[in-house]
């Protein structure tokens, strides 16, 4: 079957989740493009979106409509070409409306798994639980033909394990989108030892069609992206716990979150990122990877405690950030969780958090916030100067930041050494394209 034929009938399981909904949008766009090719005029297209959560499914439809409008607005130059033979579509508005209708017309949502039976490709994006994934894969394999291909979005479970336990004979690959799938440029591709060639080709072609940067990862739990993120986050948690002796735990969390954003010139501090991904997701990555990798402590008590207390972060259906390690107002951190008291301690620039800022010391000359460098053509020079100054600075903040950077670099090197990533460049590409970092962890700055 050709790539285009496969894309005529697609299903997504867990489609109302964070990742599933983004994948749904990307596929709907690509399928709408195919459907509008003259040679495909008489073909039927179907995109089945399955989820067990009815409320979220309703929200998903609204989300897709809004996002398709936005996508149509952005791609209007191309839409006008696509509809050039439709005499009734004259204005941009006409073309955008038609595009949204075209895409929505082949989408079916539902809770019943059996509607996927004719799908030729199925994307799996349910919770990060191995048994759940295996169970669903098995069920679907019983419903569908034996040439259906499966792409899982797992961020940590080895594909070989899913393949074996669900008995798929190599009809599965890891197609790891990053959050949010519509924005992050990265597709991390992971194949099981016997993943069939057609699926390998399909995965590569899909990544290309969706304009994703492909980074291959070997099939080792956590892969490259979460291999780095997990260890980077655990390092942050442990550093914060160490600092708790002098500055209390909320103080330690505040400090590490701040330096990991500001002095590392990253888009978010490490605890804000964990909240964004979801404390529960992070915990399950930790648990999964720890289960497959021996000789390395990949779990953390504080993380478990947060998970047990159900302080989970993640986003509401409108996209706003829920409280986790940090408390948020309009998606900006305004406080930090005090696990002993079970409440949030609000930032106080005139009081405790201002005091900590002073302890961290002045930022070195040449400091820029991430958002001010992200579009700067000379950012590499500016980063170089800044990191040089950081190295010669003697403040507490600079010391913590340098240690953090060193650790991040070591993680990167380790991923190459233990064979998760093929090259240092692959590691860097993952952080650049999947995490919005301005520089790769394996660099000469440090």
């Amino acid at each position, binding site marked *: 079957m050709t790539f285009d034929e496969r894309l005529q009938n697609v299903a997504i399981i867990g489609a109302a989740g964070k990742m599933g909904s983004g994948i749904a949008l990307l596929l709907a766009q690509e399928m709408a493009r195919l459907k509008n090719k003259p040679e495909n005029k008489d073909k039927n297209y179907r995109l089945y979106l399955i989820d067990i959560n009815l409320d979220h499914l309703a929200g998903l439809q609204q989300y897709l409509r809004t996002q398709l409008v936005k996508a149509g607005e952005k791609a209007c130059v*191309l839409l006008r070409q696509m509809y050039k033979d439709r005499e009734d579509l004259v*204005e941009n508005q006409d073309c955008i409306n038609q595009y949204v209708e075209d895409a929505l017309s082949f989408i079916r949502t539902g809770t019943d798994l059996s509607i996927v039976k004719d799908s030729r490709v199925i994307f799996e994006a349910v919770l990060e639980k191995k048994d759940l994934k295996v169970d669903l894969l098995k069920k679907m394999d019983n419903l569908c033909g034996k040439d259906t291909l499966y792409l899982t979005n797992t961020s940590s479970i080895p594909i070989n394990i899913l393949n074996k336990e669900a008995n798929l004979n190599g009809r599965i690959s890891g197609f790891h989108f990053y959050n949010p799938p519509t924005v992050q440029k990265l597709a991390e591709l992971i194949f099981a030892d016997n993943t069939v060639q057609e699926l390998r080709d399909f995965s590569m072609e899909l990544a290309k069609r969706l304009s994703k940067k492909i980074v291959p990862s070997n099939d080792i739990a956590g892969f490259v992206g979460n291999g780095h993120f997990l260890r980077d986050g655990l390092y942050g948690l442990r550093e914060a716990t160490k600092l708790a002796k002098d500055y209390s735990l909320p103080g330690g969390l505040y400090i590490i979150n701040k330096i990991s954003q500001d002095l590392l010139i990253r888009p978010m501090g490490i605890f804000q990122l964990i909240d964004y991904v979801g404390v529960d997701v992070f915990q399950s990555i930790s648990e999964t990877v720890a289960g497959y990798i021996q000789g390395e402590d990949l779990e953390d008590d504080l993380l478990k405690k947060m998970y047990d207390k159900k302080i989970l972060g993640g986003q509401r259906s409108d996209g706003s950030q829920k409280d986790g390690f940090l408390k948020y107002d309009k998606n900006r951190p305004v406080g930090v969780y005090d696990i002993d008291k079970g409440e949030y301690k609000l930032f106080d620039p005139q009081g405790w958090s201002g005091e900590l800022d002073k302890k961290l010391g002045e930022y070195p000359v040449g400091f820029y916030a991430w958002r001010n460098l992200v579009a700067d053509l000379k950012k590499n020079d500016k980063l170089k100067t800044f990191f040089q100054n950081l190295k010669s600075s003697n403040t507490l903040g600079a010391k913590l930041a340098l240690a953090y950077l060193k650790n991040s670099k070591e993680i990167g090197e380790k991923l190459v050494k233990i064979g998760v990533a093929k090259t240092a460049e692959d590691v860097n590409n993952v952080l650049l394209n999947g995490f919005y970092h301005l520089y790769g962890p394996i660099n000469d700055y440090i």
Partner: protein
Amino acid sequence: MTKFRKKVYLAAGYNTISFGSGRKEFNPKKARPGIEQYITEAGRGSIAQISDPKNIDEGVISNFMAARFCKQGNLAGFIPEIDPALEYKPSTRVEGACGSGGLALVTSMKTVLSDLADTVLTLGVEVQNTVKAIYGADILAGAGHYASERKEGHAYFFPAKFSDRAGVYYQKFGYEPTRKGMALWYEQMIKNARKNPKAQEYQNSIEDLFGAGMTPPNPKAFVENLNIYDCSKVSDGASALIFASEEGLKKLGIDKKDAIEVVGYGQCEANLTKQPEDPTRLLTTQKAAEKAYQMTGLGPKDIGLLEVHDCFTITGILALEAAGFAKYGEGAALVESGKTRIDGEIPTNPGGGLIGFGHYVGGTGVRQAVDCIHELTGKANGYQVKINSNRPYALMISMGGNDKTVTAMIFKKAE
């Protein structure tokens, strides 16, 4: 050679801020003033400079597409809202796409010349930020010929029209020098705008303006031959001024030193259903400028202040050629020479032009005349030009659509 049978003056100019992206206080998600607020702000700004609004005889208002941008027609009905003294006075709305403001000027002028009015309050307005730019492009495309051009046209209809002109011009006169001239035009306009607190680009803080202007075009997302810096922005705003006879100035208590005089004009309309004969020239603009020169016996060498319709940087360059300031094919070189800078020999668009000040489409022609009043009477503050006594005249050109509706006017300080 026609002459005016009496003198006609302009005074009491007022521009609102040109509002839209670029202004720090602009947030597309927040509520903004509506079209009536802009009209009343500009109108009141103008009549605050006269003794008594009851001495205003008529009103003229120009606008392009409020019916689509704001779902509002019958705009002349907002003139009495400016001041109760204007209730029941004759008022007229005029439209000629981006050249609407020019039409408001000539209509007001002719009304004074007709002897039916001694004073006319002239306004121009557009509020465009009510829709996203991609839908605004549909609305603005109404300045072309919908039936023969829209379906074939580009998503960004007008940028593409001038992009096509730029493409042919590049071929004829070379890509590099033209591109450079366009980037320099951008740089000059933004530098001017930074001196004008009402300009949309007043707070522009790009360090390397020329570099930004040289950004290669991206046809996938936008048009073939222009980048976003080549384009004037989407703007909300209004301008107002007063036309008056000798008698009218007295009635309104306006001192001659605060007024300018129209010494001549040229008005041309080209067939909307036809494509431009030669994409590398603005032939209608050229005709209108020639008419104004003929009527006054003046020429480019007499002009010490130029206000042209630079909806795109390339249009600015083509206008310099059409109005006789540069030979055909040498517009970019004129920009490069520095002569069009605010301190140059022919200061051009000192308030920032459409690229730097902004382009509230149906109001732009009136805005250009307001700037001429401010410059010639020494009230332009930060963007004041030193008017060369050998070149005491100002020329403004208002252009609508793809060089279809053009008004040129020549002014001098009133004596």
